[in-house]
């Protein structure tokens, strides 16, 4: 498919998705499906995942698998909290970045210099991150210290002194708040669009803006600059890169350190949201970020979609657990669309010869889709409140389903995870 084609398909996909969301909202009556609040929450929850995912992207594009993102993120939160309460938001940002980068450096030393298996090193860092931070808290935040006076405890830092500023889109989502008004009319599609736009633009943390900008920036650096080409070559064929004078070790070091810094930035973001470091606040987001990145096919756009999916599902269930059942309807309609397409294709190509080669497989798929549709629809009609446990796993189940559908089109960097040694052929 050409570039233009892909772009168009993506646009059409988004449009269909919007339409569906709007329909489901109307039918189910849960305004939270497209409310600005949900999208604001989704953004808030998606950003740390997306930052961790970006960290994963940088490392893996340079051929280093980074399962240690979680540990690096933990380092980011701790250092952000520690610097933040003493010297303010900017210091928190810098310290969190550096903390994460430190974890990345460790990973780089182990994997690049010593050729340790990437998963092993990552696991060790995931052990070390919480251990080191707990240790630091036990030493620096213990009773009687100045920090403890300022509100620190073993499990949390004092609040950071100057929270980062927030911005809104003037006119539209602030002041007259045109979008907000449009949203509250609950018109079909228009209000949904307004809600989404307002959620993404109203009263947004500066760090969110920064984080979102990092996506196109990453794309630009990795795919449009010479440095990016070299970095990706280290993930595709480091031997070729080295033979052309690219310093693969250096590139990998830079990539993995940046990767750690991104994870650390994700941690900083968490600290900014809660205004302080809280032990355990990363809650596995490093892993989810990794998942979002794989989900997104090792590309910034896809990664953003993956992070958005997690953020949206989480935000929606936090705001309105009941709305989650509407997704049974959503799924049923999606399956219906799929079925419709298949049937149309079957009818369009009337030749019997065509039919023969399709084989039984396709019919099985269609039958399964039809059955799934019926089951989903029935569930939607009968279930009005899922047990909370099932609501919590919505994003994870969705991810699995999407992977099942899309996985064969995923393509990871060819030399990802390979222990590269200078001068040694694979």
């Amino acid at each position, binding site marked *: 498919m050409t570039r233009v084609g892909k772009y168009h398909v993506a646009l059409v996909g988004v449009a269909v998705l919007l339409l569906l969301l709007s329909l489901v909202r109307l039918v189910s009556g849960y305004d939270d499906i497209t409310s600005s609040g949900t999208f604001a929450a989704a953004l808030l929850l998606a950003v740390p995942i997306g930052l961790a995912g970006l960290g994963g992207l940088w490392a893996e594009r340079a051929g280093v698998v980074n399962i240690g993102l979680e540990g690096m993120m933990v380092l980011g939160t701790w250092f952000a909290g520690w610097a933040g309460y003493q010297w303010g938001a900017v210091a928190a940002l810098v310290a969190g970045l550096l903390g994460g980068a430190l974890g990345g450096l460790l990973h780089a030393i182990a994997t690049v210099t010593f050729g340790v298996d990437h998963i092993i090193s990552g696991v060790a860092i995931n052990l070390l991150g919480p251990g080191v931070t707990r240790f630091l808290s036990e030493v620096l935040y213990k009773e009687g210290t100045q920090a403890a006076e300022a509100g620190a405890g073993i499990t949390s830092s004092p609040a950071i002194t100057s929270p980062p500023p927030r911005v809104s889109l003037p006119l539209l989502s602030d002041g007259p708040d045109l979008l907000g008004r449009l949203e509250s009319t609950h018109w079909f599609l228009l209000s949904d669009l307004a809600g989404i736009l307002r959620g993404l633009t109203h009263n947004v943390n500066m760090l969110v803006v920064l984080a979102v900008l990092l996506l196109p920036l990453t794309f630009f650096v990795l795919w*449009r*600059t*010479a440095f*990016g*080409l*070299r970095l*990706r*070559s280290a993930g*595709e*064929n480091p*031997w*070729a*890169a*080295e*033979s*052309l*004078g*690219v*310093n693969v070790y250096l590139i990998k070091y830079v990539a993995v350190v940046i990767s750690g810094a991104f994870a650390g930035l994700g941690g900083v973001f968490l600290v900014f949201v809660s205004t302080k470091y809280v032990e355990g606040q990363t809650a596995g987001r490093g892993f989810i970020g990794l998942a979002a990145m794989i989900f997104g096919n090792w590309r910034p756009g896809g990664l953003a979609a993956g992070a958005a999916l997690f953020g949206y599902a989480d935000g929606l269930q936090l705001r309105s657990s009941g709305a989650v059942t509407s997704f049974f309807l959503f799924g049923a309609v999606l399956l219906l669309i799929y079925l419709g397409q298949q049937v149309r294709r079957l009818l369009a190509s009337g030749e019997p*010869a*065509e039919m*023969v*080669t399709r*084989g039984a*497989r396709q019919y099985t798929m269609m039958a399964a889709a039809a059955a799934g549709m019926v089951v989903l629809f029935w569930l939607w009609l009968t279930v009005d409140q899922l047990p909370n446990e099932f609501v919590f796993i919505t994003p994870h189940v969705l991810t699995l389903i999407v992977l099942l559908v899309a996985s064969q089109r995923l*393509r990871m*960097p*060819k030399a990802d995870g390979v222990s590269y040694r200078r*001068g040694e*052929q694979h």
Partner: protein
Amino acid sequence: MSSDTLDAARPAVELEGITKRFPGVVANHDIRISVRQGTVHAIVGENGAGKSTLMKILYGMQKPDEGTIKVDGKDVSFRSPSDAIDAGIGMVHQHFMLADNFTVLENIVLGAEPTKAGRLDVGAATKRITELAAAHGLRVDPGRLVEDLGVGDRQRVEILKVLYRGARILILDEPTAVLVPQEVDELFQNLRELTAEGLTVIFISHKLDEVLDIADEITVIRRGTTVASVDPHEVTARQLAELMVGSELPTPETRESTVTDTVMLKVSHLTMEADGHRAAPKGMPVERYVDLLREEGRRLLLDDVSFDIHKGEILGLAGVEGNGQSELIEAIMGIRPAHGGIALGEQDLSGWSTLRRREAGIGYIPEDRHRQGLLLEASLWENRVLGHQTRRPARSGIWINRRASRADTWRIIEDYDVRTPGVDTLALALSGGNQQKLIVGREMSGEPLFLIAAHPTRGVDVGAQAAIWDHLREARAAGLAVLLISADLDELIGLSDCIQVIYRGRLVAALDPSDITPERLGGYMTGAIAGTEES
């Protein structure tokens, strides 16, 4: 290539007393070579003689322990390839050094990217590459993904990579191993143009005819040291080979026919789709289904391939890489699904797993020994078990019989002259030739009825080559049916009882090896001679 320009040229590269030791091996010992500018200087030597190591030293990928390097008369000391590139040296490696998921352009500019305001300047790069390609007659499309390219195209990309960096001295390490004669001719034509423009080429090959054809000067390396410097006009290939190994040259000729009337392997209507296998509907004959596929315009990797191999027959399969040989092998081995029939003796194998096929008596010498043939980080005896884990002596019940496997590995080591200290040595500690001998021994040890031998002597030195040929001939005499696939056309012609040519997934010609030359065979392989069947 006129000799008066040669005489006038001054040395472009001088290697003085180069010594390089690896743990336990002296790869290079006091090597002295002087390469004059504007010439093609060939370096020959048996496997492991130290050619590649020497070139890697010259290219800055490895540091010599002793010795000096002079480029254009100046002393140099390279710390990395980029130093060498700066000094105007470029190297095309023995194995392709390309990132498959990158475009041709990205592969070429990598490490020497033109930038504009921080961005990669694609426009400028495209322009430069197109100019270079036109100037040297190297056709490429800069926008294509390398993974979609054939070997010939890849080779051109490799050369363009070097030229793009403005190299004046080109190192080509076995560039012709994967090319057919026509492509080799084309390459040589390009090289001659380059030398005429004053560039210097250092050329490494095991194909001595080619060396004599292209080289202006030849250096022979044996066991890490320079043993001779000869003029190509004054030696024959045979003499050259004897210089390399110090022994007589073997020939791959089969002496008398041992072909019997019993059909051992029967392949009928073998067809493979490019975009995923779909089983034919029940009850429909394969021929009809294949017709259907063709009508639908599907791309077929194997298109209705049928042939018989008799007991005691070696069937040679000639073809440019990428025309379906790998797919054919994998279909016969049951690694990839295909339509059509495969029968071994009386048994119909289609639908069987790889394991059952092996157990039924198919042996397999894979084309890439490191990829499909060996567990490099396992011991030799474990490699002996590989592929035979369900058969004696490797297996007893659910267990692996370690003692018997070891003993049988020792037998192979002795019978096939594998040079190794023992059966517990890891496979990666062996040189390539010895690894290949181990594989041949292993595949023969199952007393197979039918053997697939894909490039059985690729990258193997002349001594080992002769030994492998002998083993194939002996087994053939004992009634083995062999499907031989080789890029070495001399080997193919010399060993086969019959040659089939595969082109774009179809068998296009059946030829008699006794009256075919490599050149004509190459014509069939490239489709230059249309598929008139002769026998």
